[in-house]
């Protein structure tokens, strides 16, 4: 298992407001379920009015982390602060201040959009005319002002998500936590949702933490924490994380055996070569110069070859030594299968 916990120095990140303290501070957080460790000492900070992404495959611990931050679970060890409140000890003080949007549907489909928000408002101590006004405001904000009287069960998936978002924002939280908010949405609805999150950050200075397992969504975040098997494997802006790879990513499809191909490449070129299923992966500057060399040096061994700029998936592979999607995370991760 290549599970290196690299030093996560925030090299290159220039704080624009160095004096602004963290909105979320996760400090050496550990969470164990009965038979497995979901979080294995995770630490990071989220800054004010930042769109922060928590990227990781299923089972990486991001949902556990999300539940701890949203005051649903108490961590086994370590501490987490949101807006200066300890999530385990000051939950009741904190709950007024955070908006939470879960992956599972929390709107009641038997109620109308308006009724759902009316109910939600009561839970947060809003009532009467002020609540009524706020519901209209938030409904038009998510583009459903004229649909308030309709039952949510008649809405499309994208519209239901917007009501979820409206529920989370009704009480004007300073921090919004979203767990895989685009699950089950079509690409158009996905784009809308992300545009809305960016608008919240820019216009209302809401700090947003969002979990995702989608690379293209992670690209849209200001900063990212990449998780794998309960560990934080990378932290930084998407651009910064990608530049750390240095140069290009070269993928070789082995004609015979990927293991021996990798071995030969190591011998010939003295570079690190990772085996990923039937492929060998190399990170190298000026990849286009390397291609003819390697093909010439190892005739008949290579079936196909590709050179690309590093993606966030490459960052993940670089840090963990295995693919983002692998069938069995606990077994030998180098034999992970392609599932994309």
């Amino acid at each position: 298992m290549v599970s290196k916990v690299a030093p996560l120095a925030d090299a290159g990140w220039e704080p624009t407001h160095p004096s602004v303290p963290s909105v979320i501070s996760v400090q050496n957080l550990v969470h164990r379920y009965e038979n497995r460790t979901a979080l294995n000492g995770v630490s990071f900070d989220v800054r004010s009015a930042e769109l922060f992404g928590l990227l990781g495959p299923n089972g990486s611990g991001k949902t556990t982390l999300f539940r701890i931050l949203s005051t649903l679970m108490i961590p086994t060890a370590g501490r987490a602060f949101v807006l200066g409140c300890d999530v385990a000890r000051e939950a009741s003080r904190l709950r007024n201040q955070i908006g939470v949007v879960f992956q599972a549907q929390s709107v009641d489909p038997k109620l109308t959009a308006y009724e759902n928000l009316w109910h939600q408002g009561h839970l947060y101590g809003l009532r009467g005319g002020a609540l009524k006004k706020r519901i209209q405001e938030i409904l038009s904000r998510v583009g459903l002002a004229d649909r308030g009287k309709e039952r949510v069960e008649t809405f499309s998936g994208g519209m239901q998500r917007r009501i979820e978002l409206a529920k989370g924002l009704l009480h004007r939280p300073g921090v919004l936590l979203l767990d895989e908010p685009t699950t089950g949405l079509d690409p158009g609805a996905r784009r809308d949702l992300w545009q809305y999150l960016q608008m919240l950050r820019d216009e209302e200075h809401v700090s947003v933490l969002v979990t995702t397992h989608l690379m293209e969504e992670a690209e849209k975040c200001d900063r990212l924490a990449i998780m794998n098997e309960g560990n934080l494997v990378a932290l930084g802006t998407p651009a910064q994380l990608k530049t750390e790879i240095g140069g290009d990513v070269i993928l070789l499809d082995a004609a015979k055996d990927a293991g021996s191909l990798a071995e030969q490449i190591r011998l010939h070129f003295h570079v690190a070569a990772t085996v990923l299923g039937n492929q060998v992966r190399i990170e190298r500057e000026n990849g286009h110069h390397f291609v003819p060399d390697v093909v010439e040096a190892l005739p008949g061994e290579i079936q196909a070859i590709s050179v690309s700029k590093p993606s966030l998936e490459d960052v993940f592979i670089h840090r963990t030594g295995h693919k983002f999607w692998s069938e069995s995370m606990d077994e030998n991760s180098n034999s992970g299968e392609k599932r994309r």
Partner: protein
Amino acid sequence: MATQAASIPRATPQPSAGLVLPAFTLWWREVVRFYRQTTRVIGVLASPLVFWLVIGSGFGTSFRSGAGAGQEHYLDYFYPGALIMIILFTSIFTMMSVIEDRKEGFLLSVLVAPVPRSAIVLGKVLGGTTLAAIQGMIFLIFAPFAGVHLDPVKILLVGVVVFLVSFALTALGFAIAWPMDSTQAFHGIVNLFLIPLWLLSGALFPLSGASGWIRIIMRLNPLTYGVEGLRQLLYPGTPTSFPLSSDTATLVVFSLVMFAIAFLMANRRTTRPAA
């Protein structure tokens, strides 16, 4: 639109939503969503009616009712038991929504709201109680066919007993449903535990006619006191084992104990996943 002061990342203490408003809104939601599911309403009302007519008529002609004055037919004897059954069905199955809420995200969104757990229990339990009590009172429409003569005072007193039984059973349903993650398991408990509880409540056969150990169970069964209480109110002059006051007192204690259990169940903040 509010501009949250982003430069002050410290939670300012705000008044919590309190107990009454969240409890009210959860109660309201429980009632509204029930009546928007027509099949549920019909099922809950129709099945005890069918039970009452089928079992009541069948038993009535097969066996001689052991009941005394004021109850000429078994159908009459069985009437209070059928009413308790409606309450049992409605209250218990209403609390199945706890499991459904947990499976979906609804319960999660309530748990992260600044709402005390007591408000969640109170709102949900009162919601189920309201539904069960309403269904039970609707069944009184058939009272004339069971040889019952109703007057306003009687209706009021029956209402009190119905409310107490509804509250206790709904709280029991809440306590059972809270830690569960599947409705199948819930059905299992209902069949194994709650249906026998009803069978041994004097609904089908009187305490006086039961054999030794069955009689002990029936005496310990809180539902017995609900059936007894209703029988005394509906058929004055029926020989009973306990006075009405001790029936009512038992039901009050039963309700309080059940609510306390429900409250304790909901208050365990765990390190396990909440859903």
